[in-house]
């Protein structure tokens, strides 16, 4: 097994290779505005570092969000494109699940990431492998924290409301995403197709009558 995983649903552009037992290489750059420029070279870098060839990859996994849409689509389109050209399956794994898996926590907790517009994307987990609620998009004050620890960039952004587990990386790591996907694939757990989780409709308003140009 050789899983190529990446996530572009947050300011982190992250890619990793996992051979079913361990992460062979991982590379992450934090830059919220350059997902389109950074992802392909990041994939090339992890391939070069691990000495693997794209031809050896057996599955491609992208974080399926939720996350800011423009960046999110870069990862999912890339997963589909590599899948089509390499002739291997591609999957989408919820980005919050990747953050959860990377936390290593074994007790209940929440993941919250930045949804912009003063909102967070969030989900509730029983442990690092098990999402029990979400993903949803809400204002921080609407998230039922109920004393649980909150990990992810949303917590770092709104520490007064969500608390802040600063000992856990706020961004998803492709290494964790790849490890989670490899574990699910090895167990035969079905994975989702690489489709985006948007949670919001596009902003668009049906126009009324044309504006008059004369008074």
């Amino acid at each position, binding site marked *: 097994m050789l899983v190529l995983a990446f996530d572009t649903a947050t300011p982190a552009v992250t890619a990793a290779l996992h051979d079913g037992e361990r992460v062979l290489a991982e590379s992450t750059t934090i830059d919220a505005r*350059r997902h*389109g*420029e*950074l*992802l*392909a*070279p990041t*994939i*090339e870098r992890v391939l070069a570092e691990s000495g693997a060839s*794209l031809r050896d990859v057996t599955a491609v996994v992208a974080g399926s969000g939720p996350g800011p*849409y*423009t960046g999110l*689509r*870069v990862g*999912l*389109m*890339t*997963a*589909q*494109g*590599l899948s*089509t*050209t*390499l002739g291997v399956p591609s999957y989408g794994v919820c980005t919050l699940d990747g953050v959860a898996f990377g936390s290593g926590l074994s007790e209940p907790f929440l993941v919250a990431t930045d949804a912009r517009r003063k909102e967070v994307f969030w989900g509730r987990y029983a442990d690092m492998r098990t999402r029990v609620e979400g993903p949803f998009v809400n204002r921080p004050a609407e998230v039922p924290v109920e004393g649980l620890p909150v990990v992810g960039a949303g917590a770092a952004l709104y520490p007064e409301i969500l608390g802040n587990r600063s000992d856990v990386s706020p961004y998803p790591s492709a290494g964790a995403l790849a490890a989670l996907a490899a574990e699910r694939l090895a167990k035969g757990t079905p994975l989702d197709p690489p489709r*985006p989780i*948007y949670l919001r409709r*596009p*902003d*668009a*308003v*049906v*126009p009324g009558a*044309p504006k*008059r*140009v*004369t008074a």
Partner: protein
Amino acid sequence: MADEPLVLGIETSCDETGIGIVRGHTLLANTIASSMDEHARFGGVVPEVASRAHLEAMTPTVEAALAEAGLRFSDIDAIAVTAGPGLAGALLVGVAAAKSYALGLGVPLYGVNHLAAHVAVDQLEHGPLPRPCIAMLVSGGHSSLLLVPDVAEDVISLGSTVDDAAGEAFDKVARVLGLPFPGGPHIDRAAREGSGEAIAFPRGKLDDGTLDFSFSGLKTAVARWVEAREASGEAVHVPDVAASFQEAVVDVLTRKALQACRKYEVHDLLIGGGVAANSRLRALAQERCEAAGVRLRVPRPGLCTDNGAMVAALGSDLVAAGITPSTLEIPADSSLPITTVHV
């Protein structure tokens, strides 16, 4: 020729997901998925709706194009993609797709200019471009006059709209007349029942000595005229308004295009972009070019509107000219200048 490279072109600058496949200048497939129906009720293209639709449509559209051409993906020798100008989020889906295909296949990538691609596409129908030629590109997003010594490497901007694009004026006037979006085809159809001389609408910047256009004042003049008739309780004869508006647009477009031909002593004019599908523009351009001794080239309507074949055609020119391929780091550039043919 069988030894010419197979180029797959990707176009996502607005609402069309276009995939084209060419061998040299032979068109093998031109497949389009459009999200226009999703935009129509909003009266214009909604960028986020377009971006979402590109991601949904890309893989099936590429597969359909390969099937149409009778090819496997592994047969493709190079990938070309619109890198700009256009809607940033929409462009980015195409650029990400192109990079993943180039990476997965191990073939070169060419990021190209959307406007230059509109020029290059004519070679698929009418053969090599005369060097130089004048190109006029008119669409919902662009109105440009270009001097084209070499479409692969040297495109010079002579003028462009200072406000609305020609196609944008069609959309806005259609709204005033209660016609659906996109306005171009509806105004074209309505105008056939009316007279282009019924109302003397203004011709912006007609004799100002530049090769720039302006259509915003015309749009406002049409709205004023309609509102004045409505205020006085008179019926508005939509075909006459449509025909007179359309006549004002195509009069300015064709005159300025021929002014450019005269000024630069060029005897070949190419018209491209979605508005080039307008029947009155095609007819008047033909008439005026004949009178001026200028040869006119207009691709068939399916190659004038946004499509992937135009991107593949320009990509093919870049391969033939030995241009260095793009890196996998190229950005999508929503305001890529026309002077940058490839990135």
